[in-house]
C-alpha cells in the first residue's frame, strides 16, 4: 500500500562545507601563484592609492550614464573626421598596387642612398653639369614619372570639382 505523497526531502548542500571547500580552493591557487599574486596586489595598491579604483567603481556603477556621455563626446565632427581619415588612409593603401609600389619604393630607396652619399660628401656640382645630367635616361625616367603623378592628381582634383558642381 503506497499512498500518494508529495513531500521530498532534498539534500540541501551544507553551506559551511561549501564555503570551506571554496576557501581551500582559493588558498591553493594563491600559494601556487604566490609571486604573481603579490605583484598584482602591489599594482592594485598603487592604483587604489591613486584613487583609480574609486573612479572605476563610479564609472561601472553608472555605466549607462557614463557610456551615453562618452558616446555624445565621441559623436562629434572632429571624431568623425579622425575615423574618416583613418578609413580613407586604409582605402588609399588598398588602392596601391603592390608591383608598382615595389618599383616606386625601390626607386625611393636607391635615391635615398645616392642622396645620403652626396650629403655626406658635401659635393657641389656646377649648373652646367647638372643640366647635362638632366639628359640621362635615369633622370628623364624619374621626371616622366613625376609628371604622370601630377597629371593623375590633377585629374582627381578636376573630377572632384565637377562632382561638387
Amino acid at each position, binding site marked *: 500500500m503506497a499512498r500518494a505523497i508529495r513531500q*521530498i526531502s532534498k539534500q540541501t548542500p551544507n553551506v559551511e562545507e561549501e564555503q570551506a571547500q571554496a576557501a581551500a580552493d582559493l588558498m591553493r591557487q594563491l600559494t601556487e601563484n604566490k609571486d604573481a599574486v603579490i605583484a598584482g596586489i602591489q599594482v592594485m595598491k598603487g592604483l587604489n592609492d591613486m584613487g583609480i579604483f574609486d573612479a572605476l567603481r563610479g564609472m561601472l556603477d553608472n555605466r549607462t550614464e557614463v557610456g551615453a556621455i562618452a558616446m555624445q563626446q565621441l559623436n562629434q565632427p572632429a571624431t568623425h573626421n579622425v575615423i574618416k581619415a583613418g578609413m580613407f588612409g586604409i582605402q588609399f593603401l588598398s588602392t596601391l598596387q603592390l608591383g608598382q609600389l615595389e618599383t616606386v619604393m625601390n626607386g625611393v630607396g636607391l635615391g635615398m642612398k645616392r642622396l645620403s652619399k652626396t650629403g655626406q660628401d658635401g659635393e657641389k656640382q656646377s649648373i652646367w653639369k647638372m643640366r647635362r645630367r638632366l639628359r640621362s635616361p635615369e633622370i628623364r625616367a624619374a621626371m616622366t614619372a613625376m609628371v604622370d603623378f601630377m597629371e593623375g592628381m590633377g585629374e582627381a582634383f578636376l573630377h572632384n570639382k565637377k562632382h561638387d558642381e
Partner: protein
Amino acid sequence: MKESNFSIEINGKEYAAEPGQSILEVAKAGDLFIPAICYHPNLGTIQTCDTCYVNAGGELVRSCVTKAQPGMKVETLSQPVQEAQYEGISRILKNHELYCTVCDNNNGNCTIHNTVEHMGLAHQKYPFEAKPYPPDNSHPFYRYEPDQCILCGRCVEACQDLQVNETLTIDWSRKVPRVIWDNDVPIDESSCVSCGHCVNVCPCNALMEKSMLGEAGYLTGIPPKILAPMIDMTKEVEPGYREIFAISEVEAAMRKSRIKRTKTVCTYCGVGCSFEVWTKDRDILRIQPLEEAPVNGISTCVKGKWGWDFVNSEERLTKPLIRKGDEFVEATWDEALDLIAEKLGGIKEKYGPDALGFIASSKCSNEENYVFQKLARGIVGTNNVDNCSRYCQSPATAALLRTVGHGGDAGTIHDIQAAELIIVIGANAAESHPVLATRIKRAHKLHGQKLIVVDLRENELAQRADLIVHPKPSTDLIWINAVTKYILDMGWEDKDFLDERVNNYEEFVKSLEKFTLEYAEEKTGVTKEQMITVATSIHEAKSTCILWAMGITQHSGATDASTAISNLLLITGNYGRTGTGAYPLRGHNNVQGACDFGTMPAWFPGYEPIQSPKVRERYEKAWGTAIPSEPGYDNHQMVEGMHKGEIKAMYLFGEEMALVDANSNYVQAAFEKLEFYVVQDIFFSKTAQFADVVLPAAPSLEKDGTFTNTERRIQRFYKVLEPLGDSKPDWEIIQEVANRLGANWNYKHPSEIMDEAASLAPIFAGVSYDRLEGFQSLVWPVAADGKDTPLLYTDKFAFPDGKARLVAVDWTPPVEVDAEYDLHLNNGRILEHFHEGNMTYRNEGLTHKVPDTWLEVSLELAKERNLQDGTLVGLTSPYGHVEVRVIVTDRVKGNEVYLPMNTRDDSKAVNYLTSSYHDYITHTPAYKEMGVKMEVIEAEGESPLPDHNHRFGNRVPQISVKVEEKWNRADFTPIDELIQLRGDEYGQSNQAN
C-alpha cells in the same frame, strides 16, 4: 528532365524550367542571384518588394510573378534592370535602418542584409525615415518594431494564407502604412494564436522573438541611450555599406561560437514538425523552422515555437528519489538502481514475471520504446507492456490493420493538402494538430478544397467548413454506414477498385441493410440531406481523405467506427492515390513510434505478432533470451490486474497515467495496491506521487533519438543541451535497469538500438541514422535499400493476397448513466497546453494566455442554469467530482459541455469523472461517453480565460496582403514606369569596367 520541362535563357545561359515556375524560381533553382525580399518559397509571390525586376522579352517585369515560358529570353545585368532593382531596394531601406552589427537578427540569415550585400549597394538613395509608431511589446513572446518594418507583407501572407489565422493585415490607407493586428489592437489582445509564422518569415528584425532581443549579439545588449548615438556615428562615418557589412559579417561569424543551432523534432503532437533550436548556454533563444523541414516547412504552433523553457525549470527532477516512510529522499543512481533490481527481481522470483507491468511512453523515442519492450520481454520475461496509444489511437490502428493491413496513416500531409475533399470526424485539428490544420485551411481558402467537419463542437475547422454535421454523441458508425450504403444504392461505388483490390464485398454489402438514411437520421440526429450531401461530396470529389481522432476512438465501439471509415474509403476507391486515404491523427509526438517499436502486449516491433513462433524465434535468437508466447496485459488489464492482486510491480516512464487514464480514482487506487512502483519522468508528476522510486529522466532536447509522426515518418532529433543535474536519457536508464536485472547490454548511442531494430523488423529494414541525417526522413515501410513509402497501397494492400478487406461492423450503444447525470461530458485538448500541462504550465507566456482549464457550456444551458463566464460549478459523475469555472460559448450546444483535459489540478482534472468502460476490442477507455450533473457553487467569479486570449480576438480575413492598395497609393510610382528599357540590353555582359 521530364518531358514537359523546358529551358529559358537568362543572361545568355540556358536554365532548366518546369511548367508553372516563375523566372525567379528558375533562377534560384539554377543558383543565379536575383534580388527578392518578399518572396519566400513557402509563401510564394507577394509582389511588394519590387527588387526582383528583370528584363523578359523586352519588358521590365517582376521575376517573382512572371512565369517562365519556353524560349523566353531574360536578362538581369543591363543598366536599366540594375537601376530598377536599385530603386526597389532603396525604397526598402527608406523603411529600415541598417545597424546590422548591433542587431539581434545579424546571424547570417537576414534576408535584407544578405540582399543588400549581394547587390553590392554602396549608399542609400533615400534617407531612412522612422515611422510614427512605437514598438508593440505587448505580446509575451514577440515584438513588432514598425521602424524596422519594410512592409514586405511576408508576415501577413503567412498569417492570412499559410497559417490561415487571418489576424495580420497591412493598413495601406494610412499616411504611413504599417502591419496591424485585428482591427489595430495591441498584439496581445488580438486573435493572434502565437503560432510564430510571422516571426519565422520576417526578413529582418521587425518581428522578433523577445528571447533573442539583447541576447543574440555581442553588442546588442547595449542600452538604448548608448546605442542610438553609436548608430548615428556609424552612419556618419561609414564610407559605404561594404565596409559596414564587413564588420557585421565578422560579428555574425563570431556569434557562431556562442549560439548553437541544433535540429530537433517537436514533442507537442503527432504532426512531427522539425526545426532548429538556437541556444546560448542553456538559454533557448529561438525556434527557427527551415524550408527543408519535410512536414512543416517554416510552420510552427504556439507550443512548438515557444514552449521549451520547461527544460530549465527549477522543478525538474535532477536526482533519483526513494520513498522512505511518508517522504521521498534524494538518492544516488546506485542506491536507486540497486533497490529497483532487488525489488523487481524479488517480485519476479516470488510471483513470476507476469506479476510485473511495463508502461512505456509515447513522448519518448523509438529507441527507448524498443529497449523498454526488450527489457519486459527479453529480460523480465513478460509481454505485459503497453503505451498510451491505448488511451487514444489503438482502435484506429486495429481498424486499419484489419481492413488495409498497416496500422498507420495512408499517406502524408502532402496528400491531405492535395485532396479535393477532406472529412474530419471527431478531431479538433486546429488546436490539437495545428500545423496539419494549416494545410487544410490553406487548401480550403486558396485552392478550392472542400471541407466537411463532423463534431459535437463547432471548433475552428468546423467554423470554416462547407458542411458542419453535429451527430448525437457516440453514433458516428451509424451515419458513416448509412452514407456508405447510400453510395452503394446510388451505384457510386468504385467498381473496378472493388473488383480488383478488395475482398468481402458481398458479405459487407449485406451487413449494411439496416443502415438506411431513415434509420440513421433517427439514431444520429443527422438529417438525410446532410448524409446525402456527404455522399454526394465524396462521389463528386476525385480524391477524399478522412481524418479522425478521439471523437471516434474513445468510445465503446471505437474500433468498429474506425473500421466503418476505412470501409467507406474502400467502397469509394479512396486509397492508394495521391490525396486519398485514412488518417487517424496521432496525438503525441511518438504514439505511432511507440506502437511501431513494440511497446504493445501482442506485437513485436513492426507489428509482427508475438504469437508467431517464427517471429519469436528471430527475436529470441537475436536477443539470446526466451520470450513468452502469449500476449500480455494492456494498460487497462494491468490496472485491473493491480486491483486483483495479479500485478505486483510496475515500471512506468514518461506517462502521467494517474491523470490521463480514465477513471482516475480507480487507477490511483490500483497504484496504491502495488508492492513496488518505479516512475521515470522529467517532473514530479501526480503518477510519481505513488512511486517507490522516482528516476529523473531527460527530455528530448537533452538526448539523441528518433520519433515517428502520424504520417509514419521517422525523423532524427539531436541533443541540444546536456541532461540537467543527474538526470539521464530514458534509454540509458532503461539499459541500466536491464543490466541490473541480468542483461548485458552495451548500447553507446541510440543509433545502435535503431540498427538492431532495423535488422529485426522488416518494415524498418532500411532505417539507419545515416539516412536520417539532418532534415532527412524516412516514411515506413522502408526497404533495405532505403526506399521509403510516403503513400501506402499504391499497388497492393498489406495482406498476403494484396487485397483489402471490407469488415462488417455494427453499432455499439454508448455507456449509459442514470438520468440524474443529465449533461453530456465531452473532453479533449486546447491549443495552448499539452496534455495535463506538466511542461506547458511551466511556461510563463503560455500560462499568461491560458492560466487554467475551464468548462465550456452552451448559450442555452447558461440561460437555463444562470451561468456566466466565471461561474464556479461542480460536476459530478458516478465516478468522481470536479470543480471548475465556466465559459459560455456557442462552440458547444444544448446539454453538451466540454472540459479540456489540460490541468494538473486534482480538483479540475476531467478523468476523475470518466469511467473504466472501454472499446470492446482494444480496451481504449470510452472517455467520450459520460454523463454529469452540475451544481452552481459560486454564481460569479473571475473568468478562467483572460480577455487577452486569442478566442476573444476579431479575425480580419483577406487574401494575401492586398498589394493593389499599395499600388493605388498616390505616393507610389511603379518602377517599370520610372525606368525605361532602351531595347539594346540583350548582349550586354557582366563587365567590371
